[in-house]
């Protein structure tokens, strides 16, 4: 697992260190947890898909233990904010209590003011069993509009990076953190190869992207490999560390 660090000097941002945990899909997390203990961030944020079960989805001990345990242990180190990926989309109402009891703050198309910023979670609208070549349906635009209207520095946890150019960029949301694309699964000749919702040669499958106005998107390559039949190539799993400062460089 590769640990990628970004240092961002963004006007209005609080000075803090956060870790972006994305797309664990209930796989092994020991290396990530060791890194987390070493980094000791001010907060842990997740753009979703920490759980995995696809069929009768419930965030409970039997189905989703690794995802839940990682987030629980992380909550013992720093506050944890989780937004809803497509693998958490079908979460039953009672599962919210399980997360809350473990100190995991779920942002399901909602936002909160904490750590000197407004932190929002834009939920994935995808149910499981979608076709990977299909375009991603639109998210809750009412949430986006309301979130952007809040004053202060905006941190948006948004599972689907493909939303950024068409729907998020230009609305004044300073920092968006995403996953879902798994780094394009393969990285060949300097290009990510395929991501659901973006198709072949996706533009937003990994790395840092910035608009002319300075709005920033960071896409995690994800913490695990979910396609054993076609293992990652040139695309290591990733744990992202973001060091924010409020001053311009």
């Amino acid at each position, binding site marked *: 697992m590769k640990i990628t660090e970004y240092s961002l000097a963004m006007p209005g941002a609080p000075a803090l260190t956060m870790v972006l945990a994305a797309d664990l899909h209930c796989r092994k997390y020991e290396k990530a947890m060791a890194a987390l203990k070493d980094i000791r961030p001010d907060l842990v944020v997740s753009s979703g898909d920490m759980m995995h079960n696809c069929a009768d989805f419930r965030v409970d001990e039997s189905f989703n233990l690794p995802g839940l345990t990682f987030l629980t242990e992380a909550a013992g180190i720093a506050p944890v904010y989780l937004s809803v990926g497509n693998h958490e989309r079908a979460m039953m109402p009672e599962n919210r209590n399980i997360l809350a009891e473990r100190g995991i703050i779920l942002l399901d198309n909602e936002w909160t003011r904490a750590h000197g910023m407004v932190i929002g979670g834009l939920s994935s609208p995808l149910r499981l069993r979608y076709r990977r070549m299909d*375009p991603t349906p639109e998210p809750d*635009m009412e949430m*986006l509009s309301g979130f*952007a*209207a809040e004053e202060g520095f905006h941190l948006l946890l948004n599972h689907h990076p493909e939303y950024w150019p068409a729907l998020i960029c230009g*609305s004044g949301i300073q920092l968006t953190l995403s996953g879902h694309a798994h780094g394009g699964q393969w990285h060949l000749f300097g290009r990510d190869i395929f991501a659901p919702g973006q198709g072949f040669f996706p533009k937003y499958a990994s790395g840092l992207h910035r608009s002319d106005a300075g709005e920033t998107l960071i896409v995690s390559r994800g913490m695990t490999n979910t396609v054993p039949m076609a293992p990652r190539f040139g695309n290591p799993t990733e744990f992202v560390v973001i060091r924010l400062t409020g001053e311009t460089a």
Partner: protein
Amino acid sequence: MTVLQLLPLPEKLSSRGMVLYMAEGERPETWSHDALLTALRLYTGRTYKPEDVVRVPNEKPYLRDGGAEFSVTHSGEIWMVCIAPFPVGLDLQKHKEKYSPGVAKRYFHPSELALLEKARTDGMDLPLFFSIWCARESYAKFTGDGVAGMDKNYTTTASPVPLYEIPFRQGYSLTLCTAFEE
């Protein structure tokens, strides 16, 4: 159990077989599908199963048997569905305490921004923002293209498909976008 309430519509729409149902409760997204099936049963007299409502990404959901057209919306704790024999787009927006000028600039047509600017001098820009947003969403739902797929030249001030602003509670905007043969 979801309690559905029938809301009044302009005679021009109701006389053509359009109905508007409303329900109220916490987290409408968790019971929206059940409420839709109930409303469809009331309207068509047929009992539909969840799989009878076909959902394709980036397209309007539709009934497999083509029994009726419908459009669902919810905002806050209010849920609504409009059902008709012809295509319809419905959107409800609960007004918030403020809006983002950045969002308006990002999504609105210059003619709509000009109206918003004019309203700002009278202190009426907040309700206007939500009215325009609501009208644009209803058009996006009518076409099935969504906000991202909207024609950049589209403006609610000269909509190619008629928009009907339906009076509802204070602090809400409610718009229907629909077309039918006269």
